[in-house]
């Protein structure tokens, strides 16, 4: 990695010295005389996109990206890794190009935020001053929400909902499982990261089982009665994996109330399921720093202004990506990237003293039912009644009736999207 902690610290020290001078000279940020300082916390699809967009819109902006991990491991396509179709290395991206584009990358965790003083405290005790702060912290898995499911339990019953070691753990468990074993996926209630993700995962695990362990079975225990791309997924299960995938909805007793990691058991009102491989996707909330910043509401997520993505509760702090409540927009990498660019434009306008125009945003999410079988959901969104709402008449899912060639093209576009977006953000 080209981003050494030493360089980051040095840059940061000079930035904070300059900030101190500014603070002494005037109680207000002096935007006309000095370039605005924008700090972005979180180096995933949202934060990294936003930092890059800010620098691209106005190279004079002082943009700092705070991200403790030296490597980003992407979630989209990580279900392919779980299914043995892809290497985890293809999911990994570094911050060298971002640093080379004039953005200061600070490889430390942000631990405190003082919204009144506009400072971010870092894990080493130093701090950064900002004119505008962007939070893109992704999700925190709630280890307090499902009895029996804590961090230790996740080592036995992986969530694999943050890509990396957990992805590989679930992969290893599937590889070690005997033919004829039972795989259970516990899917959470809304809202959560990647709404079609559990069902794509069911497809791709079934693809692995069908190929290598055809007597095995997969059950999805769901805390919901409906889910994203539902008919398309259900058709794909029937068509591609007949008799292998069973979905148990909330009203059929699918909600997991507790787990017992010692016996790999998932407990519902209607009975217990003991799995050879249990993939427990727990409830989630905004990444921790959002709560520290005072940007979360009682849902655990962040209410935002749909034009600027500025927090409803924490002034000068913008929240993008999975952590924000973006109305009709799903928590996806595509959404995070689109929100990041919209937020960057709004911030550039705000620091220049302007007033941002109402945006429109697009989301497109592909899922793979098999390596050559893609399905998608798309939407166009605009601010309405203080939220991001669907533009009526637009969006929707892939046709229920389509040729295998059509599905193959969508699978190809899914791959293309991943190659393009990761190049835009990290390349």
């Amino acid at each position, binding site marked *: 990695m080209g981003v050494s902690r030493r360089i980051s610290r040095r840059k940061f020290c000079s930035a904070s010295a300059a900030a101190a001078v500014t603070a002494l000279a005037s109680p207000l940020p002096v935007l006309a005389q000095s370039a605005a300082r924008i700090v972005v916390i979180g180096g995933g699809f949202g934060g990294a996109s936003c930092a890059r*967009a800010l620098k691209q*819109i106005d190279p004079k902006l002082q943009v700092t990206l705070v991200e403790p991990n030296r490597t980003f491991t992407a979630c989209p396509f990580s279900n392919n890794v779980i299914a043995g179709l892809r290497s985890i290395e293809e999911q990994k991206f570094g911050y060298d190009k971002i640093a080379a584009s004039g953005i200061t990358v600070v490889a430390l965790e942000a631990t405190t935020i003082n919204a009144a003083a506009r400072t971010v405290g870092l894990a080493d005790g130093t701090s950064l001053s900002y004119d505008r702060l962007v939070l893109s912290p992704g999700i925190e898995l709630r280890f307090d929400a499902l009895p029996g499911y804590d961090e230790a339990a996740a080592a036995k019953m992986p969530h694999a909902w943050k890509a990396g070691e957990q992805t590989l753990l679930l992969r290893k468990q599937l590889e070690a499982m005997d033919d004829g074993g039972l795989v259970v996926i516990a899917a959470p209630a809304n809202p959560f990261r990647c709404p079609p993700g559990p069902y794509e995962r069911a497809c791709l695990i079934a693809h692995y089982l069908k190929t290598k362990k055809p007597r095995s079975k997969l059950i999805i225990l769901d805390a919901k009665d409906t889910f994203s791309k539902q008919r398309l997924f259900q058709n794909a299960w029937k068509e591609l994996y007949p008799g292998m995938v069973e979905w148990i909805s909330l009203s059929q007793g699918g909600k997991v109330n507790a787990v017992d990691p010692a016996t790999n058991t998932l407990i519902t009102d209607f009975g217990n399921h003991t799995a050879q491989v249990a993939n427990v996707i727990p409830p989630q909330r905004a990444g921790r720093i959002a709560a520290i910043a005072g940007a979360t509401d009682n849902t655990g997520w962040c209410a935002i202004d749909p034009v600027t993505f500025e927090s409803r509760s924490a002034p000068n702090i913008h929240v993008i990506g999975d952590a924000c409540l973006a109305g009709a927009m799903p928590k996806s990498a*595509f959404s995070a*990237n*689109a929100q990041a*660019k*919209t937020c960057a*434009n709004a911030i550039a*306008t705000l620091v220049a003293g302007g007033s941002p*125009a*109402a*945006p*429109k*945003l*697009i*989301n*497109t999410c592909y899922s793979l039912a098999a390596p050559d079988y893609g399905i*998608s959901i*798309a*939407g*166009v969104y*605009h601010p309405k009644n203080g939220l991001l709402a669907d*533009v009526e*008449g*637009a*969006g*929707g899912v*892939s046709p229920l009736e389509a040729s295998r060639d*059509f599905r193959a*093209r*969508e699978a*190809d*576009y899914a*791959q*293309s*999207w991943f*190659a*393009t*977006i990761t*190049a*835009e953000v990290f*390349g």
Partner: protein
Amino acid sequence: MKALRAVIGLATVMASSLPVLAASDPPPGAASCSGCHSGGVTGSSVSRLNGRDAGEIATAMAGFRDGSLPATVMNRIAKGFSDDELRAMAAWLAAQK
């Protein structure tokens, strides 16, 4: 390049009833396109839009919207935009490097 952008920006403003934007500000929706269409990427089957002819982009979007041009997902996306919005997006994308 600046002059070219200014001309395109002016043309956009004249052609549409949208609020006046600085030449560099993306019109509604345009910033989202590069998620798939930034192009020049190995392994991508999706076309690059930056620098492409504005008329070509606007015509394609209108075709996706009314169904005369077959698509997998662009038909669903194009329906979210008016004629004026599509023209503004096309002009902005054409002006991007």
